[in-house]
């Protein structure tokens, strides 16, 4: 029986559970002996002219070795926008020189012998800022009344698509339009950002930093510091969560490397949570307008999505994410007419990056809210409206009006399985009883049907490298360009190799995150790892078997065709003659047994599913509690159900968190008001139920494993299902829409307004 598809517990865990993982701030490397601690001085003003920075007092403080300001980094070229379509004037200085653009904008760096000394001295750096009006929210940004980059002439970083034609909704019996907010949230990996750097006498720098792909980060270091990437040895230690916010490098990381050269000593930096919540990329932050039109029989004929993306102060990945939202605008539905358009706008806030789902949850939330709004308008059950409009099951590629080509899908089955598992009819009956009685605790039933794009770089990007070597002692090493930070690749990739070689999982070491050992790699993001990196390991194992077959045939003097893999032997045996064979280890003893390969999938994959969420809402207080979350997530063939379920669980929690609780807030002056975990309502165990998972697996033809991505499904499906459920709970009171997060105050006010109160 194949090990694939079985619940293998993680090989990573014994160390993690008894000694702890080794994160960047835990490193006790010889090269970091005597390292200075970096502490950033950041702007406390959202927007203003930087008049002066006086470090004289700080320089006198105990342990201070240097205070570095913009003048010192004048040799560094300001960071250009990461995409060619962004206004080229929107560059990012390494340290603010004449203007600050968000609370958290780096102004200076204090280098001290000890960590606590840095915090003391940073407070002694006197910064004089002449405030300018803050630009908070996309409406203020779009007005262009106050510009973040006057030389750009606008706050618009980029525009995508065209307005809908004037006749777009002509002929529709019913048209519903609704502005909605997909609010700004904070990714909050439990490990904040951290980096360390040490230069060697050979002119190479070794950098350790917490990230989701060492190779990409190294490339950015090279671009930013104008260095040959071969002179940069980038190591990704264990990483305490990423969720998209650790994709690539942050400028602070590269500055740590520059500082180590500047002072001629190793330097390390680990931010605290308050710094993290203003300094690390945020996610989502879209203002949307949906318009949906169709017939009273439930047929939807036209759908439009218009997005204003708040990008924060400097362009990062968030600037491009509206294009993914647009691509997935019509999702699982076969609407004849689909329109999407977006602008990306600069505001005096923390920059926006990718956050678990990254553009797709925003598409799904808009769409699934729109379908519910349409259903409410025509008075039809939302499940029925969905069934009427879902694309029929398909096994050949389907191209949508927005240009996405889905590999395969069966959305109706996903919805039916979720509704059946939930006991939909009985839930509606219970809801009716509570409404009839006028209970304080009303039941809400929400659903979503989703399709998402994973491995979006398949076919267009670099694919993924893998190497596999069997050693004479019978162990094996896998080198991968993916970059696990909780996903369990050490176990999963070992399973893939073990399945073809018979070498036990425990004897296979998976190496990643070291650019000297693995120079090429795409990292872990966009739910790409298994379908590219795992598939590359699978391919490598196949190639290794063929290499071994040729060698074994010579050694045993038999026809290669007569040799078959003997998993019990962990080698090759002569067909029909048990006990005659040679192990991979023996072959490795004769000559190095190593293959290096590269896998590129032809196209992205499109996992799909359906979620049903049951909430109880206290209509007197407005408080919503998630009672049940039932989820079908079809990600193709599952390699290790234990790991796949873990990915799903985590995503659900983040979806519930966005729908119910979490939001990054700024006041009108651009001051963040949620910059500690005492203020930011990070979801806890008490606010979640245990989840009900329903299985469905439609293999993709895009890789030999049949695997689609699973890392982001949870946020994509759960977020709108929870929001729809909360609104459904108070729909009978006249409420049609409540923006996320559906906090008690929001729900309470929505009910009051619907009831004609104030």
């Amino acid at each position: 029986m194949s090990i694939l598809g079985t619940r293998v517990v993680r090989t990573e865990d014994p160390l993690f559970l008894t000694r702890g993982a080794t994160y960047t701030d835990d490193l006790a490397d010889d090269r970091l002996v005597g390292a200075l601690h970096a502490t950033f001085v950041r702007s406390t003003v959202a927007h203003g002219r930087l008049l002066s920075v006086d470090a004289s007092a700080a320089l006198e403080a105990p342990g201070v070795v240097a205070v570095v300001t913009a003048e010192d980094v004048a040799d560094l070229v300001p960071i250009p926008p990461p995409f060619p379509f962004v206004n080229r004037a929107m560059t990012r200085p390494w340290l603010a020189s004449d203007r600050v653009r968000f609370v958290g904008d780096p102004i200076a760096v204090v280098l001290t012998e000890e960590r606590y000394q840095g915090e003391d001295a940073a407070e002694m750096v006197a910064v004089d800022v002449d405030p300018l009006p803050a630009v908070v929210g996309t409406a203020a940004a779009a007005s262009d009344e106050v510009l973040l980059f006057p030389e750009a002439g606008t706050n618009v970083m980029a525009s995508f698509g065209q307005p809908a034609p004037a006749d777009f909704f002509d002929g529709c019996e019913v048209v519903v339009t609704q502005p909605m907010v997909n609010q700004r949230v904070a990714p909050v990996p439990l490990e904040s950002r951290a980096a360390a750097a040490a230069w060697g006498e050979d002119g190479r720098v070794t950098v350790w930093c917490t990230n989701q792909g060492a190779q990409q980060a190294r490339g950015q270091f090279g671009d930013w510091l104008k260095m040959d990437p071969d002179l940069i040895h980038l190591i990704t230690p264990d990483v305490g969560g990423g969720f998209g916010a650790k994709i690539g490098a942050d400028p602070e990381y590269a500055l740590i490397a520059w500082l180590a050269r500047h002072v001629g000593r190793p330097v390390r930096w680990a931010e605290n949570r308050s710094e993290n919540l203003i300094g690390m990329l945020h996610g989502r932050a879209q203002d949307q307008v949906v318009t949906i039109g169709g017939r009273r029989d439930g047929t939807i004929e036209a759908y439009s999505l218009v997005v204003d993306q708040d990008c924060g102060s400097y362009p990062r990945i968030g600037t491009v994410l509206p294009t993914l939202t647009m691509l997935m605008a019509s999702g699982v539905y076969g609407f004849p007419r689909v329109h999407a358009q977006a602008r990306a706008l600069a505001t005096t806030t923390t920059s926006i990056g990718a956050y678990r789902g990254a553009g797709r949850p925003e598409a799904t939330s808009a769409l699934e809210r729109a379908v519910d709004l349409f259903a409410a308008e025509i008075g039809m059950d939302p499940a029925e409206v969905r069934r009427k409009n879902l694309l029929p099951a398909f096994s050949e590629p389907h191209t949508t009006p927005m240009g996405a080509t889905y590999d395969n899908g069966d959305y109706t089955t996903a919805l039916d399985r979720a509704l059946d598992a939930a006991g939909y009819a009985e839930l509606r009956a219970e809801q009716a009883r509570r409404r009839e009685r006028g209970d304080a605790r009303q039941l809400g039933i929400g659903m979503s049907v989703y399709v998402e794009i994973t491995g979006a770089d398949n076919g267009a990007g670099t694919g993924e490298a893998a190497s596999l070597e069997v050693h004479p002692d019978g162990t094996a090493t896998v080198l991968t360009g993916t970059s696990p930070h909780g996903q369990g690749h050490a176990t999963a990739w070992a399973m893939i190799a073990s399945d073809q070689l018979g070498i036990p999982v425990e004897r296979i070491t998976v190496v990643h995150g070291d650019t000297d050992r693995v120079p090429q790699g795409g990292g872990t993001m966009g739910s790409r790892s298994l379908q590219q990196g795992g598939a590359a390991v699978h391919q490598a194992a196949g190639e290794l078997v063929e290499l071994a077959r040729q060698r074994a045939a010579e050694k045993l003097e038999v026809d290669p065709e007569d040799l078959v893999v003997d998993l019990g032997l962990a080698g090759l045996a002569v067909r029909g003659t048990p006990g005659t064979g040679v192990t991979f280890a023996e072959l490795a003893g004769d000559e190095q047994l190593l293959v290096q390969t590269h896998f590129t999938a032809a196209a992205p994959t499109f996992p799909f599913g359906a979620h049903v969420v049951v909430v109880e809402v206290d209509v007197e207080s407005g408080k919503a509690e998630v009672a049940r979350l039932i989820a079908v997530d079809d990600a193709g063939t599952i390699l290790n159900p234990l790991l796949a379920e873990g990915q799903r669980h985590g995503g659900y929690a983040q979806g519930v968190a966005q729908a119910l609780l979490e939001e990054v807030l700024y006041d009108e002056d651009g001051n963040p008001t949620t910059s500690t975990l005492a203020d930011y309502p990070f979801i806890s165990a008490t606010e979640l139920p245990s989840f009900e998972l329903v299985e469905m697996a439609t293999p993709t033809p895009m890789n030999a494993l049949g695997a689609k991505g699973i890392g982001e499904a949870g946020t994509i499906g759960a977020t709108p299902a929870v929001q729809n459920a909360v609104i459904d709970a108070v729909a009978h009171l006249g409420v049609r829409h409540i923006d996320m997060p559906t906090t008690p105050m929001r729900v309470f006010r929505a009910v009051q307004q619907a009831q004609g109160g104030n």
Partner: protein
Amino acid sequence: MQISITVNGQQRTDEVEPRLLLAHYLREVCGLKATNIGCDTTSCGACTVIVDGLSVKSCTVLAAQADGGQVTTLEGLAGPDGEMHPVQQAFREEHGLQCGFCTPGMVMAAVGVLADNPDPTDREIREGLEGNLCRCTGYHNIVRAVRSAAQAGPAAGQVPQAQEVAR
């Protein structure tokens, strides 16, 4: 100032700044890096350790306050022969950890929950762990792990006797 603390069964005496947090003492003075620091507001619980039998957030305790006390960190939880504690074992079996950053604190907090209540309901487990945040697991498998660990009996709520801890 000088403090004497028994850490994972090993008594030690150190000269520390009065303001040094216990979390930083454990990490930087003792070199015990399993204890992580995930926030600065006593919100996340990643730094949870057991001090004199109680699970506490070590970022909220000065090292000086633990003077004369017994501190157990994740590194001190396995048995002297390296056998994992029932809570550690259950976290592995139930996939109660992903990135591992919250794990040391979560495991120590779970031991504390089981010390107070050897047979908790899921609700009681969730309430007991409310002060420990995890971004990866959605808590689903953590709850399962704690429930599973409870099957091991009273040992799941105990830390090893100080003198038995491996050095």
